């Protein structure tokens, strides 16, 4: 293990109060005065895209900010946002920041109990709910949240004229309140913004909590600005840095730090045009319409795209199938070449690609909505290198990046042209990162390291060392002295009965790279051998079964078909070939149901909660190790 060369720590906002602090809000204000008529946001309304100019975006942020002031929100207060991605999310978020309040994003999939926990824990005073469904969740827990004084709803359908609650008001009423307040005191918000401190709490981002209840990570304005400096202005991800000509599609939950970076902060920092997908189901269609230039996805999204391509290809007509197989094989070769050269193509590769582009890749990327992508990234969870290589092969410049909420997602990234597959890339200049010699844990230190967990001093003490290093909880190692490779989450490492340390996530990702596998959970802690619980991908396996003329009724029925078990066994055997003896999966069982957030098996970000799975499927686990004396 070699030590990286740590650069000087660049502190942001080191002299609070002296000069007005730069924040995303002031950046939006500057965009609005510099080019009021340029596009800031787009959303789809009744089937057509409409645009929000910087002037109208800022006007709405101002109105929302004044409305928060009118509702008596004081600096340091928290306001919650419980909606799908839409312009109002950003307006409410930035409006709160303008009023020096901190926003708390709530996942749209959060059930009422979790909403109650988040509201009570954060002490939010206002919540913005999207529609009747989300309003019902809040109303179910409103008694447990004494701090909650106002509920603002966006979609009046089913609410207006049916609900009466003294805390309830519509988004229009909310904005109207702000606009009236602005008429009376036009300078009010400006003064509050001018008084912003870099230590102000910008947002509380609740971590997904695969083990315990979610913890609210406090990010200050200094943290956010540092992240914008590193990731946006200095272009730590993209080369050249993002600009007003770049388009992005906002579709992952804004309550998560990754989407916040790529939507809100890229937009405020570099003026990129944010386009809101209608919903997660329409992402493929929206991608084709918008053809973004910057695209971020979590591994699940990329895996699904890949499975979709394989699936549609096998359903294509004979000629198309042949042509497709041929060019994908070429793409695979190109991908391997690119991996060897770090993502910078050779002349021969460029020529081959040019021919393939005319015949195949152009159309393929157009169908995927990635024709204009100049930078694609995967992050937030580990991904199988095969998936990344596939996209690199077809000409989507793919980069794996690494970061977490607690360091405002500033840690490492694969830089364009210097990609090392299987690693999460190089340390950003101006930040520090080291690997603990004893435990192998990754630690980071820079101005983006968070201000601690909300109301959880113990957890904060456990996460931060005395000299300001953040314990990421990830185990890693250096590759070629420059690139960081993540082995696994520290608490997930499996130690078999034989005493071998095994990283389950790598095996799981190898399995998940198959289009037929949606979830894989590798077990074996303290056991003699490894086993796996595998969840099949209903769409692809269902299609496969239809082609094989295997009838099935439900998901569970499908998982019990011997042919399907055999299909998955083939996948497992193939993966086993690439693994060392001790890492091989000896037995596996198929999960009888699709894992779900509502049932507590997945987090809001679709991460598997291992403990919950092992609890609810304990009979399966017992079966896996039946007859083995462990």
């Amino acid at each position, binding site marked *: 293990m070699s030590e990286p060369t740590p650069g000087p720590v660049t502190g942001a906002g080191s002299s609070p109060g002296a000069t007005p602090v730069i924040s995303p809000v002031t950046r939006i*204000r500057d965009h*609005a*005065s510099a080019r009021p008529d340029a*596009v800031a*946001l*787009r*959303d789809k*309304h009744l*089937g*057509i*895209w*409409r*645009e*929000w*100019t910087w*002037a*109208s975006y*800022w*006007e709405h942020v*101002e*109105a929302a900010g004044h409305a928060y002031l009118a509702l008596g929100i004081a600096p340091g207060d928290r306001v919650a946002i419980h909606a799908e991605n839409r*312009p109002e999310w950003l307006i409410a978020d930035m409006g709160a920041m303008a009023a020096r309040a901190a926003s708390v994003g709530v996942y749209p999939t959060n059930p009422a109990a979790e909403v109650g926990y988040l509201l009570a824990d954060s002490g939010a005073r206002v919540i913005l709910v999207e529609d009747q469904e989300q309003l019902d969740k809040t109303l179910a827990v409103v008694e447990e949240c004494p701090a909650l004084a106002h509920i603002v709803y966006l979609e009046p359908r089913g609410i207006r004229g049916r609900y009466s609650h003294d805390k309830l008001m519509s988004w229009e009423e909310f904005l109207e309140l702000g*606009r009236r307040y*602005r*008429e009376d005191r*036009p300078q009010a918000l400006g003064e509050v913004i001018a008084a912003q401190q870099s230590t102000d709490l910008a947002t509380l981002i609740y971590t997904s909590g695969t083990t315990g209840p979610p913890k609210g990570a406090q990010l200050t304005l200094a943290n956010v600005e540092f992240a914008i400096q590193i990731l946006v202005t200095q272009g730590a991800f993209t080369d050249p840095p993002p600009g007003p000509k770049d*388009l992005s599609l906002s579709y992952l939950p804004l309550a998560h730090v990754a989407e916040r970076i790529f939507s809100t902060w890229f937009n405020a920092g570099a003026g990129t045009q944010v386009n809101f997908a209608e919903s997660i189901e329409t992402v493929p269609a929206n991608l*084709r*319409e*918008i*053809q973004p230039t910057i695209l971020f996805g979590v591994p699940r999204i990329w895996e699904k795209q890949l499975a979709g391509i394989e699936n*549609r*290809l096998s*359903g*294509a*007509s004979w000629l*198309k199938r042949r*042509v*497709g197989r041929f*060019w994908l094989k070429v793409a695979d070769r190109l991908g391997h070449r690119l991996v060897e050269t770090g993502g910078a193509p050779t002349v021969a590769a460029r020529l081959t690609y040019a021919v393939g582009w005319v015949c*195949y890749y152009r*159309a*393929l990327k157009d*169908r995927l909505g990635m024709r*204009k992508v100049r930078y694609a990234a995967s992050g937030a969870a580990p991904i199988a290198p095969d998936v990344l290589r596939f996209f690199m092969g077809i000409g989507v410049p793919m980069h794996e990046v690494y970061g977490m909420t607690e360091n405002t997602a500033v840690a490492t990234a694969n830089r364009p042209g210097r990609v090392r597959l299987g690693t999460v890339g190089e340390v950003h200049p101006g930040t520090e990162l080291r690997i603990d010699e004893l435990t192998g844990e990754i630690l980071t230190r820079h101005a983006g390291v968070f201000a601690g967990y909300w109301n959880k001093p113990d957890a904060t003490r456990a996460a931060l060392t005395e000299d300001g290093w953040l314990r990421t909880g990830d185990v890693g190692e250096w590759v070629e002295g420059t690139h960081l490779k993540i082995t696994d989450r520290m608490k997930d490492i499996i130690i078999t009965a034989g005493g071998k340390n095994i990283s389950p996530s790598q095996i799981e990702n190898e399995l998940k790279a198959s289009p037929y596998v949606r979830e894989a959970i590798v077990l074996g802690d303290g056991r003699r051998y490894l086993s796996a619980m595998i969840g099949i991908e209903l769409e692809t396996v269902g299609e496969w079964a239809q082609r094989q003329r295997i009838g099935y009724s439900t998901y569970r029925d499908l998982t019990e078909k011997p042919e399907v078990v055999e299909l998955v066994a083939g996948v497992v055997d193939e993966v086993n070939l690439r693994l060392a003896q001790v890492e091989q999966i000896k037995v596996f069982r198929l999960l009888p149901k699709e894992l779900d957030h509502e049932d507590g098996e997945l987090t809001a970000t679709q991460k598997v909660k291992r403990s919950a799975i092992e609890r609810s499927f304990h009979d399966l686990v017992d079966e896996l190790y039946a007859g083995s004396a462990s």
Partner: protein
Amino acid sequence: MTTTIQTPRRSRRLPGRPAFFGSYEQEIALFNTRPKQIWVGVIILVAFGLPFLLTDPTLETLAIAFGFAIGALGLNIITGLAGQVSLGHAFFLGVGAYTAAALSGDPEGRTIGFGITNIAIWLPAAGLVAALTGVVIAPIATRLRGLYLAIVTLGLVFIGQHIFEEWSDLTGGAGVGREGARMEFFGLELTRTGEILSGDQKAYLTLLVLLLVFALAARNLARSRVGRSFAAVRDRDMAAEMMAINLPRTKTVAFAISSFYAGCSGALIYSLIGFFEPSSFNLLLSVQFIAMVLIGGAGTVSGTLMGALFISMLPTLTRQLPDYLTFISGSPTDIPNIFQLQEVLYGLLIVGFLLFEPRGLFGIWIRIRNYWKSWPFSY
């Protein structure tokens, strides 16, 4: 900083993103995609270049085919778009043809004539008289649908034929006939050979321009409020009524527009052919138009044009047949002859297309287009 409230507005176009629609106008534009615009432009250019490449007889056939295409567009509006099966198209064609012939006819001649030879007058007049006839008949027709409407419009053909045969002052009478309208535009003869262009070249160009006007109007109609209400009536009349579409009025309008097209078509076709007699406007003519619409692809303008050209060129093709198939005779007195063969072919083509390619020639084109559009997948 302004404090005026700015609401989000419809989006400007995004370059290089054909699937992006920022306004409904863009989505329902006459030619809403770049390839469509380009291809229509290319086809029009080629069509205007043809008179200098082809021989005069071919041009004459094409000009008449264009005339038929205008009539087929009319039938497409009532049958393809509004879903009202009409077998009476031949009757409206006759009304138009006789109106035009009477207007431009010799005042001193054997039959009625007013000597107004300007096409700018007799063509609209032919259309309007036919449209008016359509409106008069519509009250009966709008009460019926499907098979019953077909029978009533069939009756129309027979009544029309009877009137045409008996009214010999206008039509010249059965077996005699009269001259078609003279094509002249403010002193410019459109069918007679001049110094620069031959008569057939001029006729071809005239008909091409008129066809373009009628086709664009039909395409524009299809996307308008009226056209969409036609489609609603076709797809489910009761549902259309629930959407506050006035059924009798919509059907009447459909009849009127369709008859206007038929009237103009009749006037033009027989002006080109030169001489015609009442028996021309028989059931076979109606069936021919039905064949054009069905083979081309009901409900689409480009399909109808393809079908009309195909059916109008069919006699030219079958006339070559006796050279290859010696048992088929070219003379109408022998059996089997090419005229019988033509009629059999119309029937076979209609049946064949309805069975195997219900969306017509247009459907074949759509399939080819979709194959490449969905590249590299199949869906």
